[in-house]
C-alpha cells in the first residue's frame, strides 16, 4: 500500500502546485507509481502545469458523487508509461462540493494502486485545506523566504501537528534568490528552519525556466540538467529515504577586491 502526501502552505502563490507537479514527476522518473490529486476545486491548475488539461473527461467531484468510476477520471501521463496519473479537480463546483470523508475514502482507494498519492492543497485554511489533509499520511509545507509566507507556514504547521494521522510535516523552501539571502534582504534557510522548527526536506532556487516549463505543460523535473529539476529530484530521493545533501545555491562571481578581502580573512 502506498502513502499519501499533502503539499500545503497556507499562503497562496508560493509554489504548491509547481512542487506537486515536479515532485510527482521526479518520483515517476525514479520508477514509482504516482497519482497527483488536485483538490483545488473551482480553481484547478495542476492539469495545466502537467500539460494534461485537454484530456480531462471526468474529475474528482464526479468520482466522489458516483458519476464515474475512479479509473475513468484518472488521466494517464503518457510520457511516463504507466507510472504517472492525475486526478483533476472540478472547475465548476466549489470547495463545499466534497466532504473530507469522501476525499479520505478516495485517497485510501488510490493508495491501493499507487506508491505515492500527491495531494495538491488549495491556499488558505478553510474547507479546501481540510479536504486535502483528510486523506494524507504525510505533509510537506512549502514556503518562500518572505516573512509573510513563513508566518503562514507556521500557522499551517500548527494545524498539521493537531492532525492525529499525519506524521510531523517537512519543509520545502521554494523560490530562493541567493543574492537577496546573502544580502540579508530575505530570511536565510537556517533562520526559516529554526523559526518553523520542522525538518527541512529540500530547497529550490528561483528559476525562470520553471515558469517557462509550467507554461508549456512540461514540469521542469523532466529536464535532467536544470538546477530546479535537480532540486526536485533530490527532494524525491529524500522522500524515498535517501540521504542527499542540499544543492549549492548559485554563487555570484567574486570580484578582485572580494578575493583580496577573503585572503586577509576580512568577511564582506
Amino acid at each position: 500500500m502506498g502513502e499519501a502526501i499533502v503539499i500545503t502552505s497556507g499562503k497562496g502563490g508560493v509554489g504548491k502546485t509547481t512542487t506537486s507537479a515536479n515532485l510527482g514527476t521526479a518520483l515517476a522518473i525514479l520508477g514509482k507509481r504516482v497519482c497527483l490529486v488536485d483538490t483545488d476545486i473551482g480553481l484547478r491548475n495542476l492539469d495545466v502545469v502537467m500539460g494534461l488539461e485537454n484530456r480531462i473527461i471526468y474529475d474528482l467531484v464526479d468520482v466522489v458523487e458516483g458519476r464515474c468510476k475512479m479509473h475513468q477520471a484518472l488521466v494517464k501521463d503518457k510520457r511516463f508509461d504507466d507510472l504517472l496519473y492525475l486526478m483533476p479537480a472540478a472547475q465548476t463546483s466549489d470547495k463545499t462540493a466534497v466532504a473530507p470523508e469522501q476525499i479520505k475514502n478516495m485517497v485510501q482507494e488510490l493508495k491501493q494502486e499507487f506508491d505515492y498519492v500527491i495531494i495538491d492543497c488549495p491556499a488558505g485554511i478553510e474547507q479546501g485545506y481540510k479536504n486535502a489533509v483528510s486523506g494524507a499520511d504525510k505533509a510537506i509545507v512549502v514556503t518562500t523566504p518572505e516573512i509573510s509566507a513563513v508566518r503562514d507556514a507556521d500557522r499551517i504547521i500548527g494545524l498539521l501537528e493537531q492532525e492525529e494521522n499525519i506524521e510531523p510535516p517537512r519543509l520545502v523552501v521554494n523560490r530562493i534568490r541567493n543574492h537577496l539571502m546573502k544580502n540579508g534582504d530575505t530570511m536565510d534557510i537556517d533562520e526559516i528552519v529554526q523559526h518553523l522548527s520542522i525538518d527541512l526536506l529540500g530547497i529550490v532556487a528561483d528559476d525562470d525556466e520553471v515558469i517557462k516549463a509550467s507554461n508549456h505543460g512540461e514540469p521542469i523535473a523532466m529536464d535532467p540538467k536544470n538546477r530546479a529539476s535537480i532540486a526536485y529530484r533530490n527532494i524525491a530521493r529524500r522522500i524515498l529515504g535517501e540521504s542527499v545533501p542540499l544543492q549549492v545555491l548559485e554563487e555570484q562571481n567574486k570580484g578582485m577586491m572580494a578575493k583580496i578581502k577573503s585572503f586577509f580573512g576580512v568577511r564582506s
Partner: protein
Amino acid sequence: MSVQWGIELLKSAGLFFLHPLFWFFIIITLAFGYVRIKRERKTFHTRIADIYDDLKFTYTKGLIPGLLLSVILGGLGISIPLGLLAIIAVITAAAAFTLRANWMSAAYIVSVSMLIGFGLQIYQAEPFLERFPQGFAVVWPAVAVFLGLLIITEGAVAYRSAHVRTSPALVVSSRGLPIGQQLANRVWLLPLFLLVPGNGLESHLSWWPVFTVPGGSFHFLWIPYFVGFGQRVQGSLPETSIRITAKRVCILGLAVAVLGAASLLWTPLAGAAVCTALLGRIFLSIKQRVNDNAAPFYFSKRDQGLMVLGIIPNTPAEDLELKIGEIITKVNGIPVKNVSDFYEALQHNRAYVKLEIIGLNGEIRFDQRASYEGEHHELGILFVKDDREDEAVASGS
C-alpha cells in the same frame, strides 16, 4: 627643514619594503605553513588552514601594535645604531631557520644581540664596528628600554591573537590513549619606526629625544621586526593557557623596561635588564610547560560525547560557530560516542544537521544548519580519536 624631514620619512618608508627580512619572512612563513600542513596531514589526513594562513597572520596582526610601539619609541627618542640592528637582523634570520616561533621572542633575539654587541665593543672588533656610521655607539639604557617595550608588545600581540586558529595535534599518552594538543606557532611583523644615529636630522627641541643620540644627529629607519610566540597546550583551552603566558610576558617586559629606565641612573642595570629578559623568558616557557604537563589532559576522549579538537576554516563547523573544546553529544537526535557514530548520525539527514553541544561554559546548547553538497563530510570538525576508529570507519563496521 620640514622638507628634509619629509624626504627622510619617505626614504625610510621605501627602505622598509626593500629590507631583506621583509621578503625573507614570506619564505619563512610559507615554510612554517608547509611544516604545519605536513604534520596535520600525517595526523588527520587533511590540512586545517591553507599554507597562506601563517602568512596572513604574520603580515596583518602585528601592524597596529607595531605602529603604536613606533609612536612610543619615537616619543622617547630611543635610537638604535645600525650595527646593532644588523646583528638583530642576523639573529632573527638564524632563529627563523629553526621554524620554532618561541625562539623568535624579543627576549631571546634582542638580548642575544645586545650581548653580542657588548662583546664586540669590549673586544674592539674594529672590522665590524667600522662598517657602520657612528661606529657602534650604543646607548645601552635606551636599548634596554627598547627590549622591554618589545617584550610588552610581544605579550600584547600574543594575548590578542596567538590563541586564534591554533593547530591541533594528536599524541599518545603514557597509557597509550590518544591525547589532543593545541600548538600555537605564530610570528608577527611589527613595522618599527626607529631613530638611527648618523648624519641627517637634528632635533631643535630641548626635551627630545629623551635618550641621548650619539653624535647628536640621526635619521629615520622603518624596519620590519619579526616577533614570535610558540606554545604547546594540552592541559587547558588554548585561549586560557596562552593568555596567562602572554600576561606574564607583558609583566616581564614591564620589569625589563623599568630596569632599562633605571639604568639611565646606573648603566650596569642595562645588563641586569638583558639577563632578566633572557632568563625570565626561559623561566616562563619552562613554567608553562611544567604546569601544562601537571594538569589533567583537557583534549582527551570523553564519556558524554565527542570533543572538538580542531575546526577546518570555511566549513559548516565554522558556520555553526563551534569552539575548540566543546563536546558534541547528539547529532540529528542520535547520541554519539565515537567518530563512526558521528559519521553515521550525519547520514540520517544530509540536508540538515542538528547538534546538541556541551559548551565551554558547561551548558547544553543546540545548533542546526542546512548541509550542502560538496561540504566537508564530517562538517569540518577534527576530533580526539584513536587510529583504531579510523580502521573501523574504513572497514564499515
